């Protein structure tokens, strides 16, 4: 099969590779680049488990054609964790407030939160809930996730992030 060349920035590092054009960004991340932190739970844009940031915008990587990734800056859950293993303030808030259970939706939840707080550092509860409608969770009932995001927003303000 004819491949296409893609080049973009992933979590601060340049990526250049040849890929099959029918792939989704999700496949490129997981199967080609081995970054399996981004999860696939539905493959049709309904659940948000595969959410990543493309140029700072939260997108479902299962719906994002690989051909459109060139020239963009992509951030995945791996990019939020420091190389020494330290979690970002958003992840820490999720940890401290019980915002993860089975954890399968967590990378997507965290990335949606990153996009939300970048755009709206002081979200109300209903703004948080409305930002989360594209991210399904079957374990938590969302209560501790909402509390985690509120905590992250507070911590973000304190840290001036």
């Amino acid at each position: 099969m004819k491949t296409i060349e893609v080049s973009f920035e992933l979590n601060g590092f340049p990526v250049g590779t040849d890929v099959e054009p029918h792939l989704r960004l999700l496949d490129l991340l997981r199967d080609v680049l081995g970054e399996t932190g981004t999860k696939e739970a539905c493959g049709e844009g309904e659940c948000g488990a595969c959410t990543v940031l493309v140029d700072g915008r939260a997108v479902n990587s299962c719906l994002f054609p690989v051909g459109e990734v060139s020239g963009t800056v992509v951030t995945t859950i791996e990019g939020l964790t420091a190389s020494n293993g330290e979690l970002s303030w958003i992840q820490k808030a999720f940890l401290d407030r019980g915002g993860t259970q089975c954890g399968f939706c967590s990378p997507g939840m965290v990335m949606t939160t990153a996009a939300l707080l970048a755009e709206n550092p002081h979200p109300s509860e209903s703004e948080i809930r409305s930002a989360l409608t594209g991210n399904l969770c079957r374990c938590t009932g969302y209560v501790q996730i909402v509390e985690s995001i509120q905590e992250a927003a507070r911590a973000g303000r304190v840290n001036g992030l």
Partner: protein
Amino acid sequence: MTGFSYIGSEAPRPEGADKLGGRALYINDITRPGMLHGKIKFSDHAHALIKHIDTADARALPGVRAVITANDVPEVRYGFLRDNIALKSGKVRQFRDEVAAVAAISPEIARKAVDLIRVEYEPLPGVFSPEEAMADDAPLVHEEDPKGDPVVSNLLPLKCVHQSGDLEAARRASAHITEAEYSVPRIQQSCLGTAGCIAEFDLNGNLTVTAKTQIPFLAQRDFTRVLTTLGLEGRNVRVVVPTLGGAFGSGLDTHGYEYISILLAWKTGKPVKMLYSRSEEFSYLSPRQSAHFSIRQGCDREGKLTFREIEVTQDNGAYGSWGATYPNVMLVAATSLYRVPAISFNSTIVYTNNTYCQAMRGYGNPEVTWAIESSLDDLAEKVGIDPYEIRRINSNEPGDLTPMGLDLKTCGLKECLDITAERLDWAVTWGKRPDEPRGLGMAALINVGGGGKIYRSDGSGIILKLDDFGNVNVSYGGVEMGQGLHSALTLMVAESLGVKPESVFINQTDTATSPWDVGTHASRGAFMAGNAALGAARKLRERIFAAAEEVYPDVVQQNLARLGEETGPDEFDFRSLKADQFDLKDGWLFVPKAPKLPWLRVELGRLLRAIHFAEEGGKGTTFTEESFYEPPTELPDWEKGYGNMSANYSFGVQGVEVEVDEDTGEVTILRLVAVTDIGRVLSLQALKGQMYGGIAQGVGYALYEEIKTEEGRILNPGFTDYKLPTAADLDFPIELEFVETNDPTGPFGAKGAGEPGMVPTAPAIANAIYDAVGVRIHDLPITPEKVLKALQEQKVPS
């Protein structure tokens, strides 16, 4: 004051960082060198004869390594009734039936190969409801039983009945009787992480299955049978459990895809991975059972219950899973939610050509509680008392022995009722707003809290292994699936042994290294793990203290030398202490009676190294202890419906305020209060998570979720058409409160808490709708269409 160091704390979950950092490895993320990808060809009919399977084109596709049908492999029978076969021959009985399977070098090639398999069928008439299946001339789903003997009906050979008290006399003596029909739909567990496994053989014929399972040891037994079938008798089966992306009961049985992966791995000599897509998860993994109830309850003039009769009919689908035994669990609430002097319970489980069903959180209890708690409000209205009052006067009490023989050592039901009523301002609000479409409702629950004995052993083993640095490695056979078992177990090990939670490390669950456990179900994980851990910790402490008799004086002497201190003759004599004078807490050995001097405290790791590397030569001692806990319970006699199946029972009440839009039928939850008697809070963060999550599933069950089928075909196999509650749907305050009854059987007094959250939510909502607008919904889910229809019927004078 409980006096605990860690029990009840809000510590974060130990595996949380890896989950939040994307580092936790789910079955989706795991690969093996040389691994092949498996894919199943499922049936095109709900009921049909298989005339011919043509796999030639699939086999010829480059990249395909094996195509198997029933003709290519030995027959692998499974299911607890042994009525299911991994690859079907002769006929298919449901759309989910596996007729062929492929292993290929990529998932894409496997998918293409499956599409190239052609199957010729001769369609047969099917049965798609219990009524159809029980009709006189109904086609049989199974013509033979697993032994090959002919069968005459579509009824499963399972009996679960209960009769107690003098029902006739109780009926006659009743001042009020209510009678109605209720039903619940099939719903999907909807784990975010879909089902999958990797099966691999080594060159000695030993099998390892990395499985998304809740029952590693029962799976090991099931897979060992397959080895025998394959001529590999005596070889080892190892089941390894990766991080689970949710389970909720879906991992309580072994599955066709697991057996097929094993067969493909055996055929190809390569590791084979099978991973379901979301639509496969909906179509080819078993949902929760649907059920229909006829219920009759009576009471005297004051509202005291006189009798309860329940008949349940379950649409089982085409094969038996453990889910067919829901009535065993229904018995608990049917006989023992409230004091009921005369009870009749009967169950009928029916084979149909629908997809077969399996376990889901609550396992029959949300179903039967829907009927009981809806019906109880009707009865209260007949008496003319309020729903809170009827529950209160019939409440169970601590010390009760219920008609099923359940021994309620502790029972906080009355307290849960009172707190719920108080939080909702029940006395001034319920039934007092005739002009507003707002209402209050409540419903109660009883749930097994100390295991649930459905096998001969309901036990659990644990190994605690201390290393030279004072760290504890824990091998436990139960499964962390998101519920917080590891959170609670970490705190219980730390508390019982006397180390810090950050020194406790829980190993991956693996049948090769973990002691036997029956499985993680029936809200039993933390209860069982904690009791097992207490036993092993006790042994370790005894041995540490015994060894300290010899080593402690030397270590203290070293402490003194390091600090340049000397002890005077009148100071504490640390040289001749006995084992029973030591204590261990937060990872430090100390002598409670001694003065609080820094050199008298010894860090556990240092003590263990001193024992291990003693000057006169090590004593060869390692500090590894195991313990097996078997709860003091009875395997019930299901034909009598009698036996104390759990060591204790959790109770709870949920109260809800709703608003009903009388123009659209839409129900909005305004607030929800959940008060639960869980014996003791172990891990507060995990416990809250279980309650919030259970309630969310309860709301989904009540208002949204339903697997829709047409002649056995699932019509909504995805999140687009199957509605899971979103964060916006659940935008109402949930207030949690925990009643700590400190059960004598529980570790630190704790009872099971995994399932209760989901159990009473639906009837609490339905009862609130009745208070709001005066209509009673009998069939879940409570969609706006049903509410609107009921409102319209209410307006028509009868």
